[in-house]
């Protein structure tokens, strides 16, 4: 197996050095560059369970498992750069890594600026609340109450749309970091936090203090991986999509879905037209 671990910070830094030298020398095709240097560099955020996070001090999650397979398929080593969310998309544009393994919600606005892979998870919005809080039993119950969401996330945008459709809108508080927002459920400053269902379902499965409010609300959305929107990145995108299709066909995708979501997830097999 290819080595597929989080390297120590100093190594990452040195790795960054070689990447840039490579990036400045060859501006041709990202996929052939990746193959010739034998390494695919993924930008992500290790704050995003169950996609990317630290499990007992080790990088784990659905992305990790998926890209391990990508590494095997392409015959390259996978390296990760861990960034705060506000730095992830600027970093991609500045060619600091080959693609975002985030994953990122596929939206119309973002599709104008970036290319997305086939959907890799459902990103529909639902609410997380304190376990046993009977004041919020369905999404509409947030009317007039304080609710948190991640700043700059599409889930926050959906929450705002949903909130204005209510008789009294909710009082929306935006957090730089989803986990700070979850903390606020415990402090009581918000009654619930809106985020994508896979994320909050995982939080609720790991922490006995939380519970998911069903059903999801808003429009159906999906997560995808992101590449730069240029001809150099098209072959990489195609390779990733081919691997997604292949892994769906041979059951590997279902295995990692069951591992991280608790059950298989039915996803569109073609590129979707985003509803938001």
């Amino acid at each position: 197996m290819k080595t597929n671990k989080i390297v120590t910070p100093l190594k990452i830094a040195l790795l960054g050095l070689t990447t840039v030298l490579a990036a400045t020398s060859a501006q041709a095709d990202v996929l052939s560059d990746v193959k010739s240097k034998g390494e695919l560099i993924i930008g992500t955020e290790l704050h995003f369970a169950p996609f990317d996070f630290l499990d007992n001090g080790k990088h784990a999650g659905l992305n990790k498992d998926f890209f391990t397979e990508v590494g095997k398929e392409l015959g390259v080593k996978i390296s990760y750069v861990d960034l705060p969310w506000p730095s992830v998309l600027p970093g991609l544009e500045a060619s600091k890594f080959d693609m975002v393994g985030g994953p990122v919600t596929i939206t119309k606005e973002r599709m104008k600026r970036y290319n997305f892979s086939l959907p890799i998870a459902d990103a529909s919005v639902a609410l997380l609340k304190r376990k046993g809080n009977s004041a919020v039993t369905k999404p509409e119950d947030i009317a007039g109450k304080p609710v948190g969401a991640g700043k700059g996330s599409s889930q926050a945008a959906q929450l705002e749309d949903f909130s204005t459709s209510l008789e009294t809108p909710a009082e929306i508080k935006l957090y730089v970091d989803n986990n700070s927002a979850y903390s606020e459920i415990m402090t009581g400053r918000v009654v619930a936090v809106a985020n994508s269902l896979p994320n909050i379902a995982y939080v609720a499965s790991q922490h006995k203090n939380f519970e998911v409010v069903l059903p999801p609300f808003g429009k159906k959305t999906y997560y995808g991986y992101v590449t730069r929107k240029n001809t150099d990145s098209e072959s990489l995108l195609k390779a990733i999509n081919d691997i997604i299709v292949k892994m769906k066909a041979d059951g590997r995708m279902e295995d990692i879905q069951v591992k991280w979501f608790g059950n298989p997830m039915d996803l569109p097999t073609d590129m979707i037209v985003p509803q938001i």
Partner: protein
Amino acid sequence: MTFDIQVIIDHLPEIASGFGLTILCTVVAALIAMVLGLFVALGLMSKAAVFRYPVRLYVEIIRGTPFLIQLFLLYYGGPSFGLYLEPIEAGIIGLAIYCSAYFAELFRSGFNSISLGQLEAAQIMGFSKISVLWRIQIPQMMVLITPGLVNICIILGKETTILSIVTVPELAFVLTGIGSETYAYAETLTVLAISYLILSELTARFGSWTEKRLSKYMERSI
């Protein structure tokens, strides 16, 4: 590369209110921090060890840990101890506590530089301890420490970028938000840099103006 100034113009009201909030937080926190710092400085110079040591520990802990962590613990940890603060309150109080430790050290060095003979003379002439402090020690000290005060105020102003972690809609919060909505990263970062440059320059100018005025006042009074 495109540089689209229109994005900034479209969001000018938001940016202005963010900048206003940044200035408000800086000024209010600086004023509270100075008052708090004065008391902490008096504690640091106290002759009673039971008083001096805890205050010294306070100063060392505050100066030895990042503001980001202090603010996080204050805002998100406070409620566990029944302390519920609004984001702006937490931001201002956090900043004031953080900077009070720096001000305290500065005040202490200022106090120490005033000659003892002068204080004794004042006491013999019948000034009370409070009026010695207020009329003799503080004015002289201010002249000495103004450059240091300005430095701390500049640092304090820049630390306001961290208030975004507790959802205070200050300038950095507003501009990074606009950046991620419109992908105009270069434009928003440029505005952020220029705004802070203006803020720091104004603080520095105000400092040298005060310095000049104070030293004139000192000459006259001597």
